[in-house]
């Protein structure tokens, strides 16, 4: 076994933290480089998606937008975007984290550093996007008379929990992708399925009022952690209320399980990265 002198452990940790910050900055700086709109793209994407979905659901399907309570909001656009922004973070964060180890093959083969910072930087970089987008959404909510700022501390907790949830899965997939490049492609199918299994374009009440969805299926539905994350974001940014304690509990447990499992898988596989890449 390879022994590591204990005094280098602390140094390793400090170095990993500084590297994580720098890699996140690298991703952030290079993300929209050479595009004319730059960081505005972070807003253009969700806005365009919102407009398309709003058109399809409101005008083509004639869906009645759910009533936000106690906010009194009845606006499909706000309803949709409050679920879509955290979803986009999950989707982009996972895709980036999954490819992160393979994309940095050159670095892994030539330099020693804590490998886990690669998926972590990808996730943190997309988390930056989420923060900016939620900030803009909060300002937009003020304009329609909704003072969302009271709930921002709660929102921060939700964001941190979701970040760890995404990071755990990202670590696992990023490491597995070194051995099986199918993971990247498989992920896209999983994300499509996951999108519809999460209340983004519909409210959770739609699932529970559906007579065809019975006991066991409901349990399976509720096992999806993103149901609870989506509910929490919607409570804060559409209903304007604090998410229930049980929702916080589900989110914390999901984040914990995801991180424990993700780190375990990553630790197991990282020793051979330099050879496998």
């Amino acid at each position, binding site marked *: *076994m*390879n*022994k590591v*002198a204990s005094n*280098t452990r602390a*140094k390793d940790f*400090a*170095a990993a933290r*500084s*590297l994580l*910050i*720098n*890699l996140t*900055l*690298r991703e952030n*700086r*290079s993300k929209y*480089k*050479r595009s004319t709109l730059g960081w505005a793209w972070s807003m253009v994407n969700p806005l365009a998606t919102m407009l398309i979905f709003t058109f399809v659901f409101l005008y083509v399907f004639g869906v009645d937008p759910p009533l936000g309570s106690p906010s009194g909001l009845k606006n499909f656009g706000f309803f949709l975007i409050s679920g879509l922004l955290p979803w986009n973070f999950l989707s982009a964060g996972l895709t980036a984290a999954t490819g992160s180890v393979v994309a*940095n093959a*050159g*670095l*892994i*083969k*030539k*330099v*020693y*550093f804590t490998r886990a910072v690669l998926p972590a930087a990808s996730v943190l970089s997309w988390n930056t996007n989420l923060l900016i987008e939620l900030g803009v959404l909060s300002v937009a909510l003020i304009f329609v008379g909704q003072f969302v700022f009271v709930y921002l501390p709660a929102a921060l907790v939700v964001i941190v929990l979701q970040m760890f949830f995404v990071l755990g899965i990202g670590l696992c997939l990023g490491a597995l992708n070194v*051995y*099986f*490049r*199918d993971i990247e492609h498989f992920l896209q199918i999983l994300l499509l399925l996951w999108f519809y299994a999460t209340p983004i374009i519909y409210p959770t009440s739609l699932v529970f009022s559906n007579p065809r969805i019975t006991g066991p299926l409901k349990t399976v539905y509720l096992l999806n952690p993103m149901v609870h994350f989506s509910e929490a974001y919607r409570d804060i940014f559409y209903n304007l209320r604090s998410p229930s304690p049980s929702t916080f509990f589900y989110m914390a447990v999901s984040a914990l399980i995801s991180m424990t499992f993700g780190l375990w898988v990553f630790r197991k596989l990282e*020793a*051979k990265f*330099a*050879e496998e890449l």
Partner: protein
Amino acid sequence: MSDQNAVIVENVSKKFRIYHERNQSIKQMVLRRSRGVYEEFWALKDVSLTIPVASSYGLIGENGSGKSTLLKCMAKILVPDEGSVVVNGSISALLELGAGFHPELSGRENVFLNGAILGISSKELNRKFDEIVAFSGIERFIDTPVKNYSSGMYVRLGFSIAINVSPDVLLVDEVLAVGDAEFQMRCADKFTELKGSGCTIVVVSHSMEMVQSLCDSAAWLEHGSLKMSGPADQVIRGYLDHVAHNREATAPAPAAPDPVAPIVPDTAVPAP
């Protein structure tokens, strides 16, 4: 360091898989029930050596002898299958200069990024920034994206960063073959200066001239095994004699190898 040795390599073995047919997709793996057809190849076999603090050490040997693999084990990039490598103090490895540079970012941004990859704190980087840029000699282009750099500029900036990490142990793999003569001379000076300040240097090189001038001791690896180690001039002489001997043995079409009494017992024919 309280320890006398900077690097202790104990009975290190490292095997690689040589894939003849590799299954990198789940479908193939399930169908064939394996990750591919491969044979095992020992890149390093039971290598032990110690490198004293503030010395310089050369690793020599022909291509494929395991020098770079050993260096990568020291750098913690590869994990040995058997044995242990202990390095006392911080390591900086010059395996590839400018690894991790982002082409779209400026030289300045890349100095901070690459520095972080090599484990320098941003406080230290801020302090050393001017020195790094001055050593690389590309002050004028520091705010230009590195994709517009010439390969020489790229390497010079990478080298300046790596050399300014002020590591306890510096691992160098054939990187000095790049850059112009003037820059190479500056690198040699820098190595001497580092050595003077207590830095341990391990060099992998094919240039006997360089090992001779730079290193106190050396190790000669052949087919993954340690053939000889000791004072640099002795090891180099041993290695060069062996190479000359080998050429003599193979050049005048040798008679069919005698399995009972091999002509040259030491010169191991590569094991399949």
